[in-house]
C-alpha cells in the first residue's frame, strides 16, 4: 500500500512584503528588544548559462549522434576506456578512438533513483547502470529502461544489454541508453 504522507511539501515563493515590524522608537529598551527578533530571510535568485566545451572528448558525443559508441584505447598497451579519456592514466600517452557499439554489454552495478537532484526529480524513478563492455577495461554510466523499477533485485547485475540512441540528439551522454538485450 502506498505510504500516506505526513508532511506538506515545502517550497519557496510566497507573499511579497513591503514593511516589517520594528519598534516605533529607538530607545535603549526598544533596541535591546531587537536581539530577540526572528531573522529576516529573503530569496536571492541566481542563474547562469555556461559555455561548456566537450573539448578532446567531443568525438564521443558526435558518435552518439551517429549511433556509435566510441571508446578510447592506449595505442601501446591496449587499455581501453568506456568513458572517454584523452590520455591513458598509466602510460600518460594520448589515446586513440575505437568503436565498441557492437560489443557485448552487461550491467556491472545499478540503482533505482526514487529521488534525485532537482533537475531530475520529474524523471524519478529512473534506473542508473554502470555498463561493462566485453574487452573494455572501464565502465560507462548510463540509464536502463525497459525494466520495472519497482522490481529491483540483484539479479539485474550481469544482465546483457543493448544500446539505444535518441533519434534527436541532445549532445548529452543520455543520447545513448540501454535496454535488456
Amino acid at each position: 500500500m502506498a505510504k500516506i504522507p505526513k508532511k506538506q511539501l515545502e517550497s519557496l515563493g510566497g507573499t511579497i512584503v513591503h514593511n516589517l515590524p520594528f519598534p516605533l522608537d529607538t530607545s535603549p529598551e526598544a533596541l535591546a528588544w531587537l536581539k530577540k527578533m526572528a531573522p529576516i530571510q529573503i530569496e536571492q535568485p541566481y542563474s547562469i548559462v555556461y559555455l561548456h566545451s566537450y573539448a578532446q572528448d567531443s568525438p564521443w558525443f558526435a558518435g552518439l549522434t551517429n549511433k556509435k559508441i566510441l571508446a578510447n584505447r592506449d595505442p601501446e598497451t591496449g587499455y581501453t576506456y568506456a568513458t572517454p579519456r584523452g590520455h591513458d592514466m598509466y602510460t600518460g600517452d594520448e589515446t586513440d578512438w575505437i568503436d565498441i557499439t557492437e560489443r557485448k554489454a552487461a550491467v556491472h552495478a545499478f540503482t533505482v533513483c526514487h529521488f534525485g537532484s532537482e533537475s531530475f526529480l520529474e524523471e524519478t524513478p529512473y534506473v542508473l547502470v554502470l555498463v561493462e563492455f566485453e574487452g573494455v577495461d572501464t565502465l560507462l554510466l548510463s540509464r536502463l529502461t525497459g525494466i520495472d523499477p519497482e522490481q529491483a533485485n540483484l539479479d539485474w547485475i550481469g544482465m546483457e544489454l543493448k544500446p539505444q540512441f535518441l533519434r534527436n540528439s541532445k549532445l548529452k551522454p543520455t543520447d545513448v541508453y540501454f535496454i535488456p538485450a
Partner: protein
Amino acid sequence: MRPVYAISGGVSKFAKTRPDKNYQAVIKEAYDYAIDDLGLSFPAFTDNVDGSVASYFSDHFSRQLMAAIMAQDYLGLCPKPSHRVEGGGATGGLCFQEAWKSIASGHMDVVVAYGFETMSHVETWKGNEFIALASDVSFDYPVGGFYSGYYAMMVTRHMKEFGTTVEQMAHVSVKNHLNAFHNPYAQKRNRYTVQDVRDATMVAWPLTRLDICVMSDGAAATVLASEEGIRRLEKAGAKIPHPLVKVTGIGRGTDAMRMSDRPHVDYDNFIQNYATQQEKDSQETMKYYKELWDHGTRYPGIHSFRAGRTAGNMAYKHAAIQDPLTELDFIELHDAYTSSEIQTYEDLGLCRYGEGGPFAASGKAFLPNIEYGLDLTDEPICPVNPSGGLIACGHPVGATGLMQAVFAIWQLQGSIDKHFEDKTLQIKDARKGAIHSHAGTGTYVTVSVLEKE
C-alpha cells in the same frame, strides 16, 4: 617533523537550518567553545594563535566567494596567515591535516582549524544538485547526477560480490542513531529498529532515507599546537588537560572522480599494492583473497574505496599500528551512507574485504554499555562512530571532519561527560582513536590517528 598535539575543540549545534546566525557567527560558536575550554579569553587566544586553516565545501551553498576570509575577520584573526582547503566531503579532514602540517613543519606553533557549511540556503533537492556537481559534469552528472544513486550503485555491487545484506546495513543505522541519542550536538537522536530502517522511504535502491545522512548547517573548530605552542598557551593561562592528545598518524589517498574509470586489478597487484601488512602476514587471509579473486573479484572496482585503504595504510604505518581492530579504541568514520561505513570497515582493515556486512552485524563496532535491541553475536572491540557519525549528527560538509576530530579529542581527554553532560558515550580508558574523512565516492580520503600520551 615535530610532535603535534590536538588540545581543544568546539562544535556548534548541527541543525537542519540556522537562520538565527550567519555562518561566521555559527563558526564563532564552535571557536569560542574551543577557546573557553582552554580557559583563555578571546583576546588572550588571539594573541597566541599563529594562524588558521578554513574548511568549507561549496561556494554554491554559501553563494559567497571567499567566505573563509569573512570568517577570519569575524573571528578577529586578521592579519594572521590563513588559507581555505576544499576536497568535497573530506574537506574537514584535509583541513585538520593542513593545520597539522603547519605545526609539524615548524612553520607555526598554534593553529586553529575551523570549518562550516550552510546547506539550508537552498531546498533539499537543489542541494542534492549542488553536491552532484561534484561528479563529472560531462559524463556523470547529466545522466542523472545524484550522490545517493552513486553510492547505491557501489553497494549493489558489494552485495552481489560479497553477499552483503540490507539488514546488515540497517545495523549501522540503528547503532549510529542510538549512539547519538546521548550526544546533544547530534541533529537526529532517535531510536530505530532494523525494520524501521527498511520501512523508511526508498531513496536510491537499496538505500532508504535512514541509510543516508541529512543536510545540515553547522561548524566545528579544533586547536592544534606544538610543544612550544603549548608552553606559550599555558604561560598565557591556558588549562590544557594532561596527558596530552598527540596526533601520531596522518594518511591520505585519492581515486578517480568517475567511478567508471577505477581499475579492477588482479590478485598479485592487490596484494603488492593494497593489502595491509596484517593481511600479508596471514596465510589464511592470503588464501581467502585468492579464492575471492578466483571467483572474479577485482580491486577496487566500485565496491571498495582504494583511497580509504591507501590513507589507512599510510596513517597506520605512521602511527605504528599493526592491528587496527584491537589497537584502536574507537574510530569516527565517514558514514554518509550505512553502506559506506561497511565498505570503510574493510578499507581500514577492521575486517577483510568482503566481510564488512557480517562485521557490521556482529557487534564488534558497537558500544558495550548501550542496549541496541539487536541480536549481536560478538562483544564490542572497537566502537565505530560512538558520537553517532554523520548519519545521526548531520553532515555540514566543511565542518564534519573537524567535528570528528573534536569528538576524538574529548574521548581521549576523557571529557565526554563534561561536554555532553552524559557519560554514556565515553569509552573507558580510551588511549588511541582514528578519524576518517571521505569525499565523493571515495575520491579524497584522510585518516588521522590521535593518541593519549
